[in-house]
């Protein structure tokens, strides 16, 4: 009796697992398909002598070619410059934003000062205004400092970093979980707040630092609204998102779709690799952030 029972349970589990595998495999196909298509397109030549380079309704190119990649590196466009700009922006934003978020989070988590809750509530309310509302104002503000068009790269860094203090939630949540007894012990030993922050809290915060830096690093690769608004009319200040989306959206660049795909792949590779390496920290960060809200 018992044996039969466990036998049927086993069978049930087997069926259950098979169904699960089928679902997971189907999902993987759906999830990977756009990337597969993107990669295939990037290997279709735009040179009509090789293969018709406009839009087509098939996936696998008839002739694999590296023409698109060659084009990107040929210097015919400023693609490499856009890439460099984005990398510079991403690195600076990543470093500076992390510093600012750490400072703010530490102050809000560990110190009790007048107006603390008021400040947090005020920032919460500010966050409810849609970001693009202030585009025009930010543009003219930056222009006052000469940070538009030719100066758009530092301008973008400044804008991205300046208001980053408001994104303290996840990091503060992490600091809140660090035992406060450690701080108190150090203070009894005569350490200043600054020393505690730098020498005690920081070394314990590796996961959250990596998470914050990773998220900050990834954002600029996708920013085209702010970037195009600040850099308009100055090709050399574009980032990859602005430069590439013009190939798809403006009529001046017809037949650039395969080149867009190749450019997109080159953007995706480093970001994806970095993400995969640091995935563990990302998961920790988002999970922690989700629980703390």
């Amino acid at each position, binding site marked *: 009796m018992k044996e039969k029972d466990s036998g049927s349970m086993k069978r049930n589990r087997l069926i259950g697992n098979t169904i699960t595998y089928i679902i997971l495999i189907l999902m993987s196909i759906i999830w990977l398909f756009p990337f597969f298509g993107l990669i295939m397109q990037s290997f279709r030549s735009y040179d009509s002598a090789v293969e018709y380079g406009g839009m087509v309704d098939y996936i696998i190119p008839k002739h694999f070619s590296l023409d698109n990649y060659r084009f990107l590196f040929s210097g015919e466009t400023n693609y490499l410059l856009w890439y460099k700009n984005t990398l510079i922006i991403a690195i600076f934003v990543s470093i500076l934003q992390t510093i600012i978020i750490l400072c703010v989070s530490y102050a809000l988590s560990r110190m009790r000062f007048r107006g603390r809750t008021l400040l947090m509530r005020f920032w919460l309310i500010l966050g409810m205004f849609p970001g693009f509302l202030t585009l025009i*104002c930010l543009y003219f503000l930056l222009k006052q400092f000469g940070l538009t068009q030719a100066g758009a790269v530092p301008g973008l860094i400044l804008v991205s*970093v300046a208001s980053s203090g408001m994104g303290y939630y996840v990091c503060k949540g992490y600091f809140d979980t660090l035992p406060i007894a450690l701080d108190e012990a150090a203070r009894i030993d005569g350490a200043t*707040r600054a020393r505690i922050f730098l020498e005690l809290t920081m070394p314990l915060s590796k996961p959250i630092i990596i998470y914050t830096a990773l998220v900050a690093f990834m954002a600029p690769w996708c920013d085209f609204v702010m970037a195009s608004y600040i850099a308009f009319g100055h090709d050399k200040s574009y980032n990859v998102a602005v430069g590439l989306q013009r190939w798809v959206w403006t009529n001046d660049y017809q037949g650039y779709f395969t080149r867009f795909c190749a450019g997109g792949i080159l953007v995706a590779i480093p970001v994806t690799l970095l993400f995969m390496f640091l995935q563990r920290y990302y998961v920790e960060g988002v999970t922690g952030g989700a629980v703390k809200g």
Partner: protein
Amino acid sequence: MKTENKNAAAGGFSALGKSISQIGTTFAEGDWKTRLSYLIFGFGPLARGQIVKGLGYLATEIAFILYMVFFGADYLSKITTLGTVETAKKGRVTVYGDNSFLILLFGLLTIILIGVIILIWYLNIQENRNEELLLKAGKKLPSNRKALGSLLDTNFDKTLLALPTLGIFVFTVLPILFMICVAFTNYDKNHQSPSNLFTWVGLENFSKLFSFGKAGFGSTFLTVLLWTLVWAFFATFLNYFLGMGVAILINKKGIRFKQLWRTILVLTIAVPQFVSLLYIYKMFANDGLVNGYLLKWGWITSPIPFWTDPMLARITIIVVNVWIGIPYMMLIATGLLMNIPEELYESARIDGASPFQMFWSITLPYMLFVTGPFLLTQFTGNLNNFNVIYLLTKGQPQSMRLTDHAGQTDLLVTWLYKMTVTDTNYKMAAVIGIMVFLVTAVVSLIVYNMLPSVKDEGGFQ
């Protein structure tokens, strides 16, 4: 929440009253150094050897006076009209007149700075009072070294927050205040600086938003608002439950290659959206890959209008958003599911509960409880989810039933963006922006009070 605010407001008023009376007592009871400090900031501290503090106050005052004389006063004086001198032409050369934009921006800044300087003036008085009281009590004033050193210790919060707060003020607070003001002006394509002036118009733009006549925005606004809410609802909860479902599938005992499945899904987070979403848009276009193959295989005779039929476009967007959103939720759920004590499931299993019953009575309540605030931020985030909509449809298709560039998949934010960038209709963009704020704030308030973790703090701990 509400009562708290009221208390805060009441507390604020009584504190203000106290501060004002203190300004009086300090003047009445203070010595000449203190009294002179009412005019010359930091004079008292300087005279008492508090060089650092004194110089700080004095420098602030001088900087403020210089700012006002050379810059602020001029802008401030024009803020009521936003400029009167029109752009003119001398021969063929253009002579620009007043720049309404800069007048409004810097006028606003000046008003805020005046507020700040009053606050500093008050702090300066308080400092004098404190010093006098300390001296009277026979105590010594802290040395300059110590005052500076405190910035790394007891006053470390000021050091940490100074730069971030300044950044937020200049690049968030000031622009938002500016745009709120713009909602009460006629700043649009016909009134654009520096060539043309704009000026205050009162509530005209708001009445346009709520007028339902032919030229009014009313019905369009409501359509867009409704879709924004519907979208945010589906985008949040569909992803939430499907993501959780996928996490449970992957976590299931006996399923192998867990890391592989996760990595495949997580690709959508890693690859920048402007690449993946633009590709997906082309894929589902009437003449795109999907329709191309379906036609080739003879499954359909005419292309499926994924993006051009309004209803279908909305559904497609939500489905594509699932593609983006599941992995994110899956990651979060994976971590949280492991935290649920295994014993709960064990005892349920002994009671003969089916997997679905276990999900319904253990997993779901737990997840909803821990992720309540997260769901709220997701919802408000989705209200403003620009990228997904704009990279896919740009808000299209438009319709004769909607006015002013609005499309049937436009969210309030994408509509706002179009008004700003395509139409340079800043005044209406500002009005819409304020509406977005109100919607977000109202939704947050309602949902926040409904959250189980707020209602029932003890819950699962």
